């Protein structure tokens, strides 16, 4: 073997050629790749260039961004819309271009991991004049890096849809405003709600409302801008020729455009209409409420045996005033007539009917002793006037000396009586007045225990509650608390136990706490006029009745106190107005009476025939008379020995 064979030489030669060929082939291949890359690069550059050319030629906004969403390019339409140069756009990016409220939506696009689907959002872009207009932004992420040149990973466009959106939002806004304006009749509340709503298109909103009492201002809760910053829109609120006020909307960013002006014009029309409606309702409500108050008694009897407490709660401002009433007045024979009731229906008519019914009850109470009879006579009067009138009512007499209630009930909630730790509903009942027109009512009698609590109320107290039975139980529970604590004002306490806020319907409550005789005393303040004396005599008569004084002792007490009052009226005050305080109480076997005035009191001269006999009579009837003067005050202190049991 020692030398090479011919084939061996060939192999050596081929190895060298092979290396050379390989190098050549590699170079050729490299050149080919490079050439292809150059071609491809050139093609891509041409493509990008074409994209830019196409983008520039496009009237819509076209943009590109890097992977993170940073703006790289915006076409002329974008630059012109935003009023910026390409450099400014590149430097500031989306900041200052997109409304701050829409940036989250925009960022959401660039945070998407799925590159395949195109994305569409609606955002507001700031125009060169500062106005923001709604645009539909479409964005597509390039599939791979090979598609991207110059860092471009996102390509997108924006189409102005503002006018279309504004028309839709305007319709929606006005519909919402109309709903707000008809949802309430409480003027201030509804105007405040609308002012808040108006801030969707303004930074702040003020509604000035002119009225008889001056101009009221209802504003949105947004911060009021300084004058220098304001772009203000002022639109009068009118009802025909009558100016109701004005609508003032302010914005700090830019002036209101025509579309927004038109929007607020429409809003002002709706506000004006709502104001007229609400004011009309308020006038009727006020009239009915005034009538209602006028018809309710100003003063309740001042009795030493019964402590009255009443309450009339007018329903919320959006409720119609009802025809509820309560009443209590003293009769000449010492009894007390009481009534409570509710006229069916609401408004001025019901309030007026209530007034007629209450006065009819007063008239008939004077010459009747049967509550059922009184209700029948009231029914006859009502039927003569209007056969459609209907009312529920309780009418009764209280004999404070005997401690007895006689009553009749025409379809009204039962009277409640709290005593000895329990509350009972007093029996009785019949159809409402006017239901049949010829209803008759039975008279019931109930003893009124000392220290008891009698409560009459209208249905508004319990019927607002979902569970009426539960509400009635709450009334009873509150009554037990009141009965146990003489310091509690009964009517208010019971009402507060049922309502945390103002009741929706009117509520009338008449509560009577029956005071134990040992706790009795008279404390009256009367005007120094002759007409006041009869009230004092009535109080003295009941006081004497409770103490079981005989007729002569009662007469002595009444005449002696009455003469002291006459002296104060005639000799202390003369023609001047003043007040007289009367306090009477019983201590063991002695009755004390103190009559005080602040006039220029003098003991009448005996030669004042008749008039001067007052002091003589006082000295004769009272067991002890003492006249004390302290400063401007004169006290006539009388004592009467009694042999009461």
């Amino acid at each position, binding site marked *: 073997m020692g030398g090479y064979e011919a084939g061996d030489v060939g192999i050596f030669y081929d190895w060298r050629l092979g290396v050379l060929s390989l190098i050549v082939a590699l170079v050729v291949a490299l050149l080919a790749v490079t050439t292809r890359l150059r071609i491809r690069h050139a093609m891509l550059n041409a493509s990008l260039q074409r994209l830019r050319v196409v983008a520039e030629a496009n009237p819509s906004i076209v943009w590109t961004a890097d992977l993170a969403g940073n703006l790289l390019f915006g076409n002329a339409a974008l630059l012109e819309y935003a009023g910026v140069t390409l450099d400014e756009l590149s430097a500031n990016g989306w900041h200052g271009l997109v409304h701050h409220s829409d940036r989250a939506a925009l960022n959401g696009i660039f945070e998407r991991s799925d590159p395949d689907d195109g994305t569409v959002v609606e955002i507001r872009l700031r125009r060169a004049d500062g106005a923001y207009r709604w645009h539909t932004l479409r964005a597509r992420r390039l599939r791979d890096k090979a598609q991207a040149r110059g860092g471009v990973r996102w390509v997108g466009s924006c189409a102005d849809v503002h006018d279309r959106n504004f028309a839709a939002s305007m319709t929606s806004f006005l519909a919402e405003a109309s709903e707000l304006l008809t949802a309430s009749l409480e003027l201030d509340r509804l105007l405040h709600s609308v002012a808040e709503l108006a801030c969707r298109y303004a930074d702040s909103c003020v509604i000035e409302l002119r009225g008889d009492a001056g101009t009221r201002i209802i504003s949105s809760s947004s911060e009021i801008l300084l004058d220098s910053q304001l772009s203000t829109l002022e639109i009068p609120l009118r009802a025909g020729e009558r100016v109701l006020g004005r609508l003032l909307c302010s914005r700090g960013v830019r002036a209101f455009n025509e579309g927004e002006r038109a929007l607020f014009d429409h809003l002002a029309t709706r506000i004006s209409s709502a104001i007229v409606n609400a004011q009309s309702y308020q006038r009727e409500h006020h009239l009915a409420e005034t009538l209602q108050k006028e018809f309710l008694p100003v003063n309740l009897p001042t009795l030493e045996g019964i402590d009255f407490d009443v309450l009339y709660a007018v329903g919320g401002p959006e409720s119609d005033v009802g025809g509820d009433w309560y009443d209590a007045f003293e009769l000449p024979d010492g009894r007390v007539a009481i009534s409570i009731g509710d006229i069916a229906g609401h408004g001025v008519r019901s309030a007026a009917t209530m007034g007629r019914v209450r006065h009819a009850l007063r008239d008939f109470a004077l010459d009747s002793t049967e509550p059922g009879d009184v209700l029948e006579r009231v029914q006859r009067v009502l039927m003569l006037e209007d056969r459609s009138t209907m009312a529920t009512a309780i009418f009764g007499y209280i004999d404070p000396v005997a401690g007895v209630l006689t009553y009749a009930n025409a379809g009204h909630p039962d009277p409640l009586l709290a005593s000895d730790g329990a509350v009972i509903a007093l029996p009785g009942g019949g159809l409402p007045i006017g239901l049949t027109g010829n209803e008759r009512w039975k008279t019931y009698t109930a003893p009124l225990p000392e220290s008891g609590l009698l409560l009459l109320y209208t249905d508004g107290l319990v019927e607002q509650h979902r569970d009426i039975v539960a509400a009635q139980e709450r009334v009873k529970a509150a009554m037990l608390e009141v009965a146990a604590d003489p310091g509690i004002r009964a009517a208010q306490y019971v009402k507060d136990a049922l309502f945390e806020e103002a009741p929706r319907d009117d509520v009338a409550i008449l509560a009577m706490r029956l005071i134990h005789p040992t706790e009795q005393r008279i404390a009256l303040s009367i005007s120094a006029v002759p007409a006041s004396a009869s009230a004092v005599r009535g109080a003295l008569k009941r006081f004497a009745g409770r103490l079981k004084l005989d007729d002569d002792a009662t*007469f002595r007490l009444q005449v002696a106190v009455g003469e002291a009052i006459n002296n104060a009226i005639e000799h202390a005050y003369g023609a001047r107005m003043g007040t007289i305080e009367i306090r009477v109480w019983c201590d063991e076997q002695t009755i004390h009476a103190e009559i005080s005035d602040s006039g220029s009191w003098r003991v009448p001269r005996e030669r004042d025939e008749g008039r001067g006999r007052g002091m003589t009579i006082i000295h004769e009837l009272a067991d002890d008379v003492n006249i004390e003067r302290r400063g401007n005050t004169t006290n006539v202190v009388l004592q009467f020995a009694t042999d009461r049991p």
Partner: protein
Amino acid sequence: MSELGFRAELHDGVPVVRLVGDVDMRSAPALRETLLGAAQIDAGAVVVSLRDAAYFDSSVIYELSAFGERLGRNRQALLIVLPTLPSALTILRICRLSERYDSYASVEEAVSSVRGRTLDGTR
């Protein structure tokens, strides 16, 4: 009870003014008018009954005193029907009404007395 607390009647042609219920300073002027009206009937006397009065005070005493004097000047007489309560009688006594004027227990007695009088007011 009427609001004024008194009423004027004729009994056998004799004017009778009854005080009923409470008569006080407030009703005294109206009482005066009623008494003067009753005095227009020329029966020689006017009967005033305090029997049904639940309350009367010095203002009533004053009116009755003044009225009695006026009747006397006109040769007429004031006859008083007494109240029943001791204290009411005391008032008439200390004011000397029961001393100055003839007093009776009932209206009928007083009227009979008047019918027995002569026209000049004397028995």
